[in-house]
């Protein structure tokens, strides 16, 4: 059942991207997009499940939407933060490399967390080793793992846990 679902969702996503790229509703364009989307989703829907992507659903979709809004807010904050540090006459940085833990299971969930951390203020992910993430922090506020986890990871983890549950 979940395979049929993920086939359907993958197909819809591909078709929507196709419409976005062509931006026409002419029958022949739509027909070609339909054929290509069907072809690609027959090949890849098994890989898609195997990679550990969650089977899509309405609740996950809503949380993903909230997550994207939160992420966007953080991206804007990150940009202002780094821009401020770059133009400040004394270059106020306090860099270091810290380790944080993550409770997330699965490679895809961890990948999304690592990429989100890279996009947020002052932090970027150097490496993911098991359930630890190695983070370069431009302004180290604490050197304890627990506090760093709280400050860096938690704001995303609570959404990702639901999305990738």
């Amino acid at each position: 059942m979940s395979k049929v679902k993920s086939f359907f969702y993958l197909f819809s996503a591909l078709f929507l991207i196709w419409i976005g790229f062509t931006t026409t509703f002419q029958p022949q364009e739509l027909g070609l997009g339909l054929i290509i989307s069907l072809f690609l989703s027959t090949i890849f829907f098994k890989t898609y499940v195997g990679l550990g992507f969650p089977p899509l659903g309405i609740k996950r979709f809503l949380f993903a939407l909230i997550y994207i809004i939160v992420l966007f807010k953080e991206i804007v904050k990150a940009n202002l933060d780094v821009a401020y540090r770059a133009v400040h006459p004394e270059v106020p940085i306090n860099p270091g490399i810290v380790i944080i833990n993550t409770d997330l299971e699965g490679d895809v969930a961890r990948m999304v967390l690592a990429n989100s951390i890279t996009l947020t203020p002052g932090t970027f992910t150097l490496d993911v080793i098991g359930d630890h993430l190695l983070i370069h922090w431009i302004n180290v506020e604490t050197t304890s793992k627990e506090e760093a986890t709280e400050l860096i990871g938690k704001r995303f983890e609570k959404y990702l846990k639901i999305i990738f549950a």
Partner: protein
Amino acid sequence: MYYLGLVVTGVGVLFLCLGGLGLFRFPDVYNRVQAGTKCTTLGAFCTILGVGITQPGWFWKTLIIALFILATNPISSHSLGRAAYKSGTELAEESVVDMAGEFDDYSEEG
């Protein structure tokens, strides 16, 4: 609509400029990667989307391109930072802490 697009593009260009300034002013590889990721993400996003707003026919295409940049930019910065650390590039003198030595993969290096 046209002028809104110009403003959005202008904001993007401003962020790209600040990112370039950060590349010069930050002391070591890792901080420079930070400047390179953060500012170019929003900078490129706004620039491309601004072009889409000035030319409404291109809007959906530019939106998809911008989203792809958003998804791939962190990966490039991550691999740059990881490669720099693995090859033994040292942190700047201002650095406070380096906990990477706790992992076997990293403690042999350096």
